[in-house]
């Protein structure tokens, strides 16, 4: 190594250091600490938690609430992921078409679609709490003429989780629409014109040109929507507290409950470890399976 090469290497490490230190302190260390903590019991009466090996994990297997949270989360993810992705593409296509057609009010359309993203979660929850209010909420009023109404959407076991799904889709789709819109606007308009001249229908053009060109965005959105669907908590805390009868308890909310309401941090750590492991497997699978089919411009 020459002098200048050595100096460059030192400078490189120094430049990386702040980010690396933050990452280690706030991501890597907590992860490892969580894994270690999950092998310990509850801290009681001021005594340090005792080492219990895999007892927390054994308890988990027998915990019916854990299994229900897992089931709820599976239903929630299976609905929110495809619905919010499909809706975000449709909205992005609509806004993109409006841009091309130079119609009036396209700014309004964009703002309207993006609004859910800029609203704070508490505000969203309040809006939807009003929508879902039994009797005089928006949904019951709309349904009243058809003989329905006075239904406790968030209080009934059959509708609480679907109601949470609707709110989440509404919020997620608005956010990811922006990514699709950005991707759509990088596709040159001449491609559409060439396809039109070649006799391709709008659907053919979407299937054979737009959709393949959107795959990098789709992969990105997919990974994020999946992670989001396991990271949801604020909406549950504000709207249902996991009820009724754990009907809207999903994994992260259960972890929150165990860790910060029952103060069983060892068990919460074990639950967290399982969630992390699941997410890691999903992310890896996504990149390995889908990565090859993605066309990067």
């Amino acid at each position, binding site marked *: 190594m020459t002098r200048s090469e050595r100096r460059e290497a030192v400078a490189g490490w120094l430049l990386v250091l702040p980010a690396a230190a933050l990452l280690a302190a706030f991501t890597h260390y907590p992860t490892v600490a969580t894994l270690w903590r999950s092998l310990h019991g509850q801290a009681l009466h001021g005594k340090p938690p005792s080492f219990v090996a895999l007892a927390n994990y054994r308890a988990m297997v027998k915990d019916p609430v854990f299994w229900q949270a897992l089931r709820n989360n599976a239903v929630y993810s299976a609905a929110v992921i495809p619905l919010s992705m499909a809706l975000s593409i449709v909205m992005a296509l609509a806004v993109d078409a409006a841009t091309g057609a130079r119609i009036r009010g396209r700014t309004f359309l964009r703002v309207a679609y993006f609004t859910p993203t800029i609203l704070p979660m508490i505000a969203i929850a309040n809006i939807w709490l009003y929508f879902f209010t039994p009797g005089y909420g928006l949904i019951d009023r709309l349904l009243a003429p058809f003989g329905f109404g006075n239904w406790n959407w968030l209080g009934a076991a059959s509708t609480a989780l679907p109601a949470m799904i609707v709110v989440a889709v509404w919020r997620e789709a608005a956010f990811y629409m922006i990514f699709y819109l950005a991707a759509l606007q990088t596709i*040159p308009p*001449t*491609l559409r*014109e*060439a*396809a*039109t*001249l*070649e*006799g*391709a*229908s709008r659907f*053919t053009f979407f299937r*054979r*040109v737009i959709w*393949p*060109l959107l795959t990098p965005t789709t992969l990105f959105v997919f990974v994020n929507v999946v992670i989001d669907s396991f990271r949801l908590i604020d909406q549950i805390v504000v709207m249902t507290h996991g009820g009724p009868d754990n009907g809207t308890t999903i994994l992260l909310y259960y972890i929150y409950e165990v860790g910060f309401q029952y103060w069983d941090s060892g068990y919460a750590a074990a639950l967290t470890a399982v969630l992390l492991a699941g997410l890691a497997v999903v992310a890896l699978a996504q990149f390995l399976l889908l990565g090859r089919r993605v*066309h990067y*411009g």
Partner: protein
Amino acid sequence: MSERPVHGAAVRLHHVTRRWGTSVALDRVTIDVAAGSFTVLLGPSGCGKSTCLRLIAGLDEPNDGRVEIDGRDVTPVPPAARGVAMVFQSYALFPHLNVGENILFGLRARNVGKAERTRRLRDAAEMLGIGHLLDRRPAQLSGGQQQRVALGRAVVAQTPVCLMDEPLSNLDAQLRAEMRREVLALQRRLGITMIYVTHDQTEAMSMADQVVLLRDGRVEQDAPPDRIYAHPETTFAASFIGTPPMNLLPLERTAHGLTIAGTTTPLMTGRPDHRGPLLAGIRPETLRLAAAGIEARVTHSEFLGADTIVACAVGAGAARLLARLPGRARLQPGDRVAFALDAPPHIFDATTSRRIVHAAETPTRTATPVST
């Protein structure tokens, strides 16, 4: 290669107007393109030539007027049903499809059978010399290769009309000259009607059967290349065609005849019976050095190899006169020279910019080939 059932179709724009708000892109334009011809729409940027092409393709609609293809009014017909193929300036290749898939995109969209697709792809690839590139993506191709793929996509469609929008403008000079020959050969071989948009008069002169010169949304002149070169109808046509452009100099009526204002040598003895100010149009290549003639002072000279472009100041207002002299003209700035004319000048009305036909005008001499 198998015989192809393609024949050109006539294309006609009839009193076509296209406006965007208050700006008029095309103003009652009428253009007739003969079946099987190579027609170039020529003009500076913003003249409306690309708009013409898009109206013919159906990618845009006229506010007024009619588009006809093969005698049929296609104004309300969607692009795909008009029987036109188009090569875009940017080539518009699909970046995620390989060359073969790009070329066959339209045939698949139109549900052409597999055997027929394969045959047409093979023919087109052979004709354009891109057989070895079929598995590559557009990003892996050079500009010239992408151009050939875009041509291939137009060729396999076997449409009677092919539209090209500045197709060579992204290529370097040498490749452009080569592609010019190839495109022309392809059009001749297929017998299709080619409508080709360019701002490069060299492309127009070297390829076209018919040149439609456009300016500010109107047809300035519609004529074969030799005619437009020898008989420019307007000062704009005169200065747009030819390299370097035609000299346009103010004329003065004297007792001896018409002279360039401030000089004594008459350009012509006849007196056009025309009142009002006149302009003389003199092609740089019709000037040669002489012992006596139009006196001028050299201001600059540019040696190009086969010839030299000499810029001079002439007459009272020191108007600029360009002369194209063969070989290496050894002239220095400040040298006094005199020019004789090999061909009578073109005379234009300075007010209307239109050509004046007069008795002294001799039949057209053979057009000098325009350099590239």
